[in-house]
């Protein structure tokens, strides 16, 4: 079946949807989280309510904070 030709507004809307989806994905990837990877490379999420999660986040925040530029 032949695909229906899309007009410029439809094409622009499609483009905007793609950009919005990319932005959402990027934002989701930057959400605070702890992932661990086994030797085969499989990732597993440490759930926020799991034992040690809070402490792991705390340690990572300290490592990142140690690298923050002092505010002028």
């Amino acid at each position, binding site marked *: 079946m032949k695909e229906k030709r899309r007009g410029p507004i439809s094409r622009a809307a499609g483009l905007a949807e793609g950009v919005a989806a990319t932005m959402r994905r*990027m934002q989701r*990837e*930057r*959400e*605070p*989280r*702890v*992932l*661990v*990877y*086994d*030797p085969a490379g499989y*990732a*597993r999420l*440490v759930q926020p309510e*799991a*034992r*040690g*999660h809070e*402490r*792991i*986040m705390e*340690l*990572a*925040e*300290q*490592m*990142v*904070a*140690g*690298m*923050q530029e002092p505010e002028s």
Partner: protein
Amino acid sequence: MSILTAMADTLTPGRAAESLCELSTDVRTAVLLDAAGSLAGAGGDGSEHARAIGELARQLFEEVDRATRDWDTEPPQQVEVQVPGGAVFASRTPRWTLAAVAKRGALSSLMLYDLRAVLSELEGGPPIRRSRAADEGTAGPPTEEFAAEELPMPELGE
């Protein structure tokens, strides 16, 4: 003389963290710890805080081991922690732990790959080959044999 030339190409523990910083522009600082958790090398902007970062990295894996102790899986080899101001990535082998503090938005897959590559080189694996610009010229003659050596293809099974 030839011995010194050969040694210059070998990745040493002292150079490993620095090598990671050279590989990725997203890395702000990196530290290498030995099996005892002592600092073996540091690189990047935070090399003056290296001891503190190293200690935090050691504690990070301790906490990860504690958190995953009851899991029915092998102990984690790599860790990724995303926090509001950036991200921490760490990878370990029985002998070494390499941890990096990265900029916000650093690509996880690339970061983890680079960490593994540096550790693998440190463990005696093949050195990481850095690409060169075409105008930098090549080290050898432009023959098919040389090109094959530059881009080794994986061999299929017998």
